[in-house]
Structure formats: structure tokens, C-alpha cells
């Protein structure tokens, strides 16, 4: 009789097609049914009339009530079940949703559990259902829902991680592109200078040979006038052709330029190394001014051509910080500033020390942020850029980095005039790990 009906998602799958009893059936017959081993799991028997409509239910409990009394069997055995049945069975339509049915049943059932519920189709009896089965089915459903939710959550988390990573990649990519462009310029003139130096060497060498030969021939007692004249001619020609003095002078300048250019390239490579440590939680003692300089170097390409940069850097004590992260913060602020300023803008960077804290402000003369957006700009994924441009995570990450350093970042803005970001970092800092969800994702990345 008992089948595993608890795997279904609807009432239909819980139906146990029990043969109902007619209202006129005698209690004796009902007793026999209850005693039958096939009916061992059944708590109650449904009573259904000729037209197939459920009219009542007789529970084992109720039955025992009658039969346990002295002479119960003798007194009532021949009477019809309709005299004793409960007339308000729990009815559940076969197409009722599981949750609804479960609610109805649990709200109306009585304790101790004495009855099964009756399942109907268009008002007609089709079977009974065990309350236990219903509750099991509900539990399975909830578990399925819960699984779905878990899956959705982990998909969300991984897409969030992907976004954070792509923001990091984008910022890294931007930085790499910037550096590549920056390196091209000194590379251009250093390469050319060295090539021309090579040529000039060859020429000057020829000249030198010429002079040496001439001097040798002048010192040589055996040399005749013709030879000396020939050598003199040669030197004179070379001299005229080469224009050595001027070229050598110019070349001096170019050598100095080349050394400068190589210095530039080295600095850019150093910056690259700094940024490649982006995931490191490594901390160092350094001055915020250095972080700003580093970010300016890298961001120079983005700022070039548009922006007048004004620096007002104070004397700053060294602080414990993760320099690659602070570099990222300033690069983010500078890039945002550059994007806010269409052309001919001004970027003012100030640093100073106040009340045991290191302060920095980055002010641009760009289009500003409307006040309704101002409170949201540090929110993850908030962006005013069109779809596909930017992840809206730059400032969120910036904010988080500053917080991790025990500091604060705030913003003020005047639409049409410009925006200013203020950063405050305590001098004594412990760089902490974050504990909020977005931030948890970030720390996961940092550990990776």
C-alpha cells in the first residue's frame, strides 16, 4: 500500500487510491478493514457516497473510542459508519499547489494526528493523502528552492568577482597602455641618438686617422712633400665634410638627452613593477607624495595634452601602507579627473599634515557631479557612463583601499566648476583586511 509518494511536486503524486467506504457500511466491516494488514499505514478511512462525493471520514482513533468502551463492538457493530464519522474531512483538490495544500492542512489538522486528508478531483473522491507525505514533499520543495537560491548566490558572487577582476584588469590595462606610450617617446630619441652617435664615431675616427697619418708623415724625415700634401688634402676634405666641432657639440647635448631618456624609461619600468605587485598585501613605509608621483608618471599619458597639473606637496611623514594600492587609488582619481575635463583643465594636488594625519586633496576643473549622485559614487557598480564603458567599481575599490588603511575619503563637487576628493590617512596605520561582501571578494582576489 505504502508507496514512496514524497518525491512529487504536486498533490497528484501524493494520491493513495484507497477504496472508500459507503456511508451505510457497518462498523464491523470497518473494523475488519482497519485490522487488515494492507491498511496498516492508513490513519482513517474516507466515506464516499454513491455519487463519489466524500461525505465523511472515520479515523482509527475515533473507532477505538467506540470499540474500546465495554461492549462497544456488540453495541455498535451493526450500525452504519455514517453515525460515527467525522463530517468535516480535510479536503484537498488534486491540482492544488503543494504549498497551498500544505498550508490548508497544517492550519486545519488537529493534534494528535488522527486523519489523513482526502484528495478530490472536481469534487469527486480520488484518494487519500498522508500528511507525512505532504510535509515531506514540502520539505523537498523547499530544499530545491534553497538549492536554487544557493546556486544563484554563487553565480552572483562569481560574476561580481569577475567584475571586480575585470575592473582590476581594465585599470591594469590602462596603466600598461599608458606606460607603453610613455616609453615610446624616450625610446625614440635615445635610439636615434645612439645610431647617430655611431655614425659620428665612424666619421670622427676617419678624421682621426687622417690627422694621425698627417702628423706621422710630418714627423717622418723620409716622407716627401707630395705625400704630406696628399695627406693634408685628405684632412682638409674630411674636415670640410664632417663639420666635426659643431656636430660633436650637438652630440654632447644628445648624449645628455639620451641619459635622461633612459632614466625616464627606467622610472616607467619601476612603476610597472610597482603596479605588478597589485595583489600583494605587502606594506612599506613611504610618503604619500611618492605614491602620487608614481601615479602621475603612469597617468601622464591620460593627462597629457589636456591638463595643467598643479602640485602643492607638503612635508609628509612616512606611513605604513600598501604602495601599489595607494598608487591605484591616485591613478583612479587622476583618470576620473581627466575624463571629467574635456580640454584645458586644471588638476590641483595638495598634500599636507594635520592633527597626526596625512591629508591629500585632488581637485579637478571638470564638469562636476550632481548632488543626487554624490552620495552614490562610492557605491559598487554605480556609474554614469554608458553601458559597456567602465564597471563602476573604480571608486568603490578606491574607497575600500582607503578604509583598509584606516583612513577616510570624501568628495565635494560643484556641477560646472569641478570636483574635489579629500583623503585622510592616519600616520599610525594598520592595514586591515576587509569584512564586507564586495570586499570579501576583493580580499579573495588579493590572496589569489
Amino acid at each position, binding site marked *: 500500500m505504502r508507496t514512496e509518494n514524497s518525491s512529487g511536486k504536486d498533490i497528484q503524486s501524493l494520491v493513495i487510491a484507497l477504496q472508500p467506504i459507503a456511508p451505510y457500511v457497518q462498523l464491523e466491516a470497518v473494523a475488519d478493514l482497519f485490522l487488515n494488514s494492507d491498511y496498516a499505514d492508513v490513519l482513517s478511512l474516507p466515506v464516499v457516497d454513491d455519487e463519489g462525493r466524500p461525505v465523511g471520514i472515520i479515523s482509527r482513533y475515533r473507532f477505538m473510542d467506540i470499540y474500546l468502551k465495554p461492549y462497544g463492538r456488540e453495541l455498535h457493530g451493526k450500525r452504519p459508519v455514517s453515525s460515527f464519522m467525522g463530517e468535516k474531512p480535510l479536503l484537498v483538490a488534486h491540482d492544488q499547489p503543494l504549498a497551498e495544500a500544505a498550508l490548508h492542512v497544517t492550519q486545519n489538522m488537529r493534534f494528535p494526528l488522527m486523519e489523513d486528508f482526502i484528495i478530490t478531483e472536481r469534487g469527486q473522491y480520488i484518494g487519500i493523502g498522508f500528511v507525512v507525505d505532504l510535509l515531506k514533499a514540502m520539505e523537498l520543495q523547499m530544499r530545491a528552492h534553497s538549492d536554487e537560491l544557493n546556486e544563484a548566490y554563487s553565480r552572483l558572487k562569481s560574476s561580481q568577482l569577475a567584475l571586480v577582476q575585470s575592473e582590476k584588469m581594465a585599470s591594469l590595462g590602462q596603466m600598461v597602455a599608458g606606460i607603453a606610450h610613455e616609453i615610446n617617446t624616450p625610446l625614440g630619441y635615445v635610439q636615434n641618438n645612439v645610431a647617430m652617435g655611431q655614425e659620428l664615431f665612424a666619421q670622427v675616427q676617419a678624421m682621426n686617422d687622417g690627422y694621425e697619418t698627417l702628423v706621422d708623415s710630418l714627423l717622418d724625415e723620409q716622407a716627401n712633400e707630395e705625400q704630406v700634401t696628399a695627406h693634408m688634402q685628405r684632412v682638409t676634405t674630411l674636415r670640410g665634410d664632417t663639420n666635426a666641432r659643431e*656636430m660633436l657639440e650637438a652630440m654632447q647635448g644628445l648624449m645628455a638627452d639620451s641619459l635622461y*631618456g633612459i632614466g625616464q624609461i627606467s622610472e616607467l619600468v619601476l612603476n610597472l613593477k610597482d603596479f605588478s605587485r597589485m595583489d600583494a598585501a605587502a606594506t612599506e613605509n613611504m610618503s604619500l607624495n611618492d605614491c602620487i608621483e608614481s601615479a602621475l608618471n603612469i597617468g601622464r599619458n591620460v593627462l597629457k595634452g589636456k591638463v595643467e597639473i598643479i602640485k602643492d606637496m607638503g612635508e609628509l611623514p612616512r606611513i605604513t601602507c600598501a604602495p601599489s594600492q595607494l598608487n591605484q587609488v591616485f591613478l583612479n582619481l587622476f583618470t576620473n579627473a581627466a575624463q571629467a575635463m574635456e580640454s584645458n583643465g586644471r588638476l590641483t594636488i595638495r598634500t599636507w599634515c594635520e592633527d597626526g594625519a596625512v591629508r591629500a586633496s585632488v581637485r579637478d576643473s571638470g564638469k562636476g557631479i550632481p548632488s543626487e549622485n554624490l552620495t552614490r559614487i562610492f557605491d559598487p557598480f554605480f556609474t554614469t557612463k554608458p553601458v559597456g564603458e567602465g564597471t563602476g567599481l573604480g571608486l568603490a575599490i578606491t574607497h575600500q583601499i582607503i578604509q583598509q588603511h584606516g583612513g577616510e575619503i570624501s568628495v565635494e563637487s560643484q556641477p560646472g566648476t569641478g570636483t574635489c576628493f579629500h583623503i585622510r590617512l592616519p600616520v599610525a596605520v594598520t592595514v586591515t583586511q576587509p569584512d564586507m561582501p564586495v570586499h570579501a571578494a576583493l580580499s579573495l582576489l588579493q590572496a589569489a
Partner: protein
Amino acid sequence: MSKPTLLLIDDEERILRSLRMLFFTGYNVHMTTDPHEAIRILRDEQVHVVVSDQRMPVMQGSELLRIARETSPATMRILLTGYSDLDASIASVNEGEVFRYLMKPWNGDEVKQVVAEAAAIAEAGFALQKSHAESAVVVPGKKPRVLIMDNDEATAQAVHEVLQGRCEIIWASDAQHAMEELAKQDVSVVVSDLMLGETNVGYILKTIKQLNPQTQCIVVTSFSDTNSLIELINQAQISRYLPKPLSRGTLARHLEYLLERFQALCNMPSLQQRQSVAPISNPQEKQLSENFTSLLGRLRKAGA
């Protein structure tokens, strides 16, 4: 000739000093970081060649070269830049009409050679202006021929609409067809995509320009690759690069201008040098080009 005048513009002084060294002897070199100063020099002096950087604070190179073109059309224009930005490249073609587009870091010998070539062309132009030796020979007005190399119907439609029967329009279905048409008679303007079916027809544009410097070429394409554009500038001296979808107004304007230019070049052949091209760099393309040329030659002989 006396030393040609060279004008160098870049916002990085060290680049200028380094470049100048290449032209230490043999040129009269002006250098400046200020584009406005450059424009003044172009106005007041006879400059043979102007070499400019692209990315500068005050003004973009392509913009400067556009002004240079208006101020001193005979001056040859070269863009030298480390920054290959597609928009800038397109501007340098369409507005600046640059002779060469060179990348940084540059090759010293290549730059010297390109500047020398440009200076010679400019010198010829100046000499001509002075002597009025060549009067415009007005070639009898044959109906101009426009060749379309693009499988996209929209292009052909656009050209037809704009020209409305003023020109003979040939729509080539493939490279073979294009060659046959070219064999019959020279073409004034070519309107071409970069791909004709499966074939990249860049080599055809380059070859046409080698054989027929007065033919003007408009490239219309949705494919935007800066490197191939730079090649087309240097090796095919394309006159215009218009992204798809084509706007009628834009196409009309450029077609008119180039048809006139073609006529001017026919009338004064010495001007044709101004658009001479660099040799094809890619070996396969070079081979294709040589084959094309010899086949074309044979077809012409057969037809003659």
C-alpha cells in the same frame, strides 16, 4: 638647389633635438614645440617639408597639418607619431592629406630618405610656381570614370545617386574584372572597400597608384585597422578614408573634390609627384602587385 627648409614640431624638445641631428647638414632646420609658432613659420617662409607629432597639448598633429595644407599647400606633410590612434590617422588622411605617416620609434635612415624625397617634390613644386613653366594643359573633357571595388550594393547605390550619370561608373565584381576595366582606360576615382569578397584588394590600390599617380582613391570600409590604414597612406596614398555606413553628403563632397583634383593633376602632370608612393612592404602583396601590373600590361597591349 639651396638647402631645403624643414619644419619640425613635437611637444618633447629632446625628440626635436634628436631629429634635427639627422638633418644637421643639408637642411635649413626650424624646430618648435609651439604649433602656432609653426603656423607662423609656414606663412612667412618657404617650407619644403613639415614633420609633426600627433599628440600635443595645444593642438593635434592632424589639425596642424590641415592648417599647413591651407596655409602652404606646396609644403609636403609628414606625421611622425608614437601613438596610433585610428581617429587621428583618419584625420591625417582626410584633412591633413599627409604624404607619409611614420611611427615612433623611427628608423633614422627611413626618415632621412622620406624627407629627402618629400623635399625634392616640394622643390619641384616651388620651382614650377616661380617659373610658370608649365601652363595648365587642359585635357579635353572625357567623361570621368569611377571604379567601384566593393561587393556591398549600398556603396554602388550611393555612388550612383551622388554622381547621377555625370561619370561612367564601373562596378567591379572581382579583381579580374577590375583589371580588365583598368586595361581599357584609366580611372579618375576609385571607390573601394578593403576586401572584395575573400580578397584583400589593398595591393590593387597600391598598384594603381604606382602606375597612375593621378588616380584618386576613396577607401570606404567598416573594417578599422590602424595598421592597414597607415600602410595605405604610405604605399597607396589614398585620398580619403570613409567609414561605413556611407553618408550621401560626405561621399558627395569628397567625390566632387577628388574629381576636380584628378582633373587638375591631368592638366598639370608635375603635381602628380606629390602623391608618389612608398614601395609595397609585404612580400606577398608585392608579388600580387607585380603580377597585376604585368597582366594589366598584357591586356592593354592586346587591346591597343
